[in-house]
C-alpha cells in the first residue's frame, strides 16, 4: 500500500493527461444528462431580459476569441435565442481582435438558421469589428455610427432600419458582453456609469469571481459565469419556452448543457487527483519524519 502512494508521488504526468482527455471526451460523446443547479446571477440575467418589451434593442458584444469559445459561444447563442423568442432586436459588435469577428459571424449565421424569421437589418444587425475597445465603447455612448459608420458588409448604418431607432447606447436597453479579458470590464466601468445602460456579463469561469464585486454593487444586472452559467441559462430557456426544450434535447451541436457533463467529470477527476496527491504527500512526510 505504502509503495502505491510512493509511486503516486512520482506518477508520470502523461497518465494524468490521459485521464483528463478521457474525462472530457467521453461525456461529450455519450452525454450523462446531469442536473443543472441554478445560481442567482444567472437567474437575475434571465429575469432582466424577460422584463424587456417586444422590439427593445439589446447590444451583444463579442469580447472573446476562439480560446474561450466553448465557454462563451453557448452564452451568446442562448442570449440570442432568448432575444429571438422574446422578439427583441439585437445589435452585434466585436471588440476583441483575435478572432472575435469570425466567431460572431458563425454564431449569427447559426442563430439565423435556427430562427429563419429573423430579418437582417430589421430584427438584428452585425456591425463587425472595431479596434480600440474602450474608445469605441465611449464613442458608441455618444454616437454608434461614429464608432461603426457601416455594418460588417460595408452598408452605411443610416440605410439600416434597426439603426434608425438607435443613435447611441442610451436607446439600447441592455448590453450583453461575452468576455474573456478586460474588455468586458470596460463595459461595466466606462459605459454603464456614463451612459446608464444596464450590463450583463458572460465571463469565463476563471474570470467570474471578479464580477461578483460588480454584481454586489449593482453595476451589472446579471452574470452568466462560465459554462455553468451558460448551462443554467439554457435550462431557464428550456423551462420557459417549450420549443427550446425540444431544441436542446435534439440538437447535435455543442451546448453548455453537454459541456456541463464533461466539466463535472473533469472536476471529479481533478478532485480525486488532489486527494490522492495529498494523501501520498502526508504519508511520505510522516515516513520521512519517522526515519
Amino acid at each position, binding site marked *: 500500500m505504502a509503495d502505491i502512494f510512493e509511486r503516486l508521488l512520482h506518477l508520470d504526468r502523461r497518465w494524468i493527461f490521459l485521464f483528463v482527455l478521457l474525462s472530457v471526451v467521453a461525456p461529450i460523446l455519450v452525454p450523462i444528462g446531469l442536473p443543472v443547479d441554478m445560481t442567482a446571477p444567472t437567474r437575475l440575467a434571465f429575469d432582466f431580459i424577460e422584463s424587456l418589451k417586444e422590439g427593445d434593442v439589446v447590444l451583444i458584444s463579442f469580447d472573446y476569441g476562439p480560446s474561450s469559445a466553448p465557454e462563451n459561444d453557448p452564452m451568446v447563442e442562448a442570449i440570442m435565442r432568448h432575444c429571438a423568442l422574446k422578439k427583441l432586436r439585437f445589435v452585434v459588435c466585436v471588440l476583441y481582435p483575435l478572432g472575435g469577428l469570425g466567431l460572431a459571424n458563425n454564431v449569427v449565421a447559426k442563430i439565423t438558421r435556427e430562427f429563419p424569421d429573423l430579418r437582417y437589418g430589421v430584427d438584428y444587425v452585425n456591425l463587425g469589428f472595431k479596434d480600440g475597445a474602450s474608445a469605441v465603447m465611449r464613442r458608441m455612448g455618444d454616437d454608434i455610427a461614429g464608432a461603426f459608420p457601416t455594418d460588417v458588409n460595408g452598408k452605411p448604418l443610416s440605410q439600416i432600419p434597426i439603426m434608425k431607432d438607435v443613435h447611441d447606447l442610451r436607446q439600447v436597453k441592455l448590453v450583453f458582453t461575452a468576455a474573456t479579458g478586460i474588455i468586458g470590464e470596460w463595459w461595466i466601468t466606462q459605459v454603464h456609469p*456614463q451612459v446608464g445602460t444596464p450590463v450583463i456579463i458572460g465571463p469565463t469561469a476563471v474570470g467570474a469571481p471578479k464580477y461578483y*464585486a460588480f*454584481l454586489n454593487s449593482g453595476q451589472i444586472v446579471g452574470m452568466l459565469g462560465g459554462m455553468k452559467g451558460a448551462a443554467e441559462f439554457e435550462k431557464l430557456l428550456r423551462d420557459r419556452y417549450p420549443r427550446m426544450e425540444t431544441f436542446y434535447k435534439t440538437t447535435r451541436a455543442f451546448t453548455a448543457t453537454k459541456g456541463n457533463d464533461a466539466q463535472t467529470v473533469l*472536476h*471529479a477527476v*481533478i478532485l480525486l487527483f488532489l486527494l490522492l496527491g495529498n494523501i501520498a504527500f502526508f504519508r511520505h512526510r510522516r515516513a520521512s519524519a519517522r526515519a
Partner: protein
Amino acid sequence: MNLEFGRVTLVILFALIPIVGIFLGMRAPALRSRIPIFIGLFAGLIPILSMYIPKRFLSGETGMSPRLDQWLIILAGFALLLGIVNVLQNSMRKISRRESGWPFSIVLLLGLFVTGGFGIYGALSGHGIGIAADGTPTPFQYMTNWFFQPLQSTIFSLLAFFMASAAFRAFRARNTEATILLIAAGLIMMGRVPVLELLALPIPALHPAAASASQGLGKLTEWIMKTPNGAAQSGIIIGAALGAASMAIRVILGIERGYLGLGKGE
C-alpha cells in the same frame, strides 16, 4: 470650413504643436521631452474635464472629448499596423540569419500574407470577410474557421492538462494558508458542478440525498463567491483603480516619463 472652438483647439494641441515640437526638438534636445509631456497633459485633462464641465465644445457630440475618442480608434488601427511591421521585421531577420526555429517564421509570414490577402480581397471585391448570403464562408472566414480557430483552441485547451497535472503535483496542504486555499478550492469545485450526483449515479437509492447535498453545497459555494470573494474582489478592484488614478495623475503632470522612451539624461 468648420471652425468650431473645440475642433480648432484640438488641431492646435495635437497637430500643430507636435509638428512644431518635432522641429524644435531637432535643434534643442531639452524640448524633446517637454512637448510630449505638454501633449500628454491635455490628452489626459480633456476627458476628465468633459465629465465635470457640461459644455458643448468639451463633451457635446462633436466636442473635444468624443473627438479624442474618435482619434484613439484611428490610432488603435495604426497600432495594428505597427504590430504587422514588427512581425515582418522580426520574422525576416530570423529567416535571413537562419536563427533557431526559422521555418516557423516562414509559416507565420505565410499565415499573415494569406489571411491578410483574403481580407483585402474581400474588401476590394465587395464579398466582405464574413459569410456570404448563400451561407458559404468567404475565403477569409474559411481561414478563420478551419485554421485560426482550431489552432487557438488547441493551444488554450492544453491548459486543462497542465492545470490537472499541476494540481496533482503542487497543490498540497503544506501549511495553514495552503490548507485553507485547498479546502476553499475543493468546495468551489464540488459546488459549481453536480459532482455528488455524478458519484451517486451507480446507486439510485442515493440520488435524493446526493441531490439535496449538492444543492446545499451549491448554496455554500454561492455564499463564498458572493460574500468573502466579493468583498476581497471589491478591495482589489478599488486598490487597482486608485493605483491607476495615481499613475494617470503622474503621467498628466509629467512626473512619470517612462512612456516617452527617452534615453538617459534627455
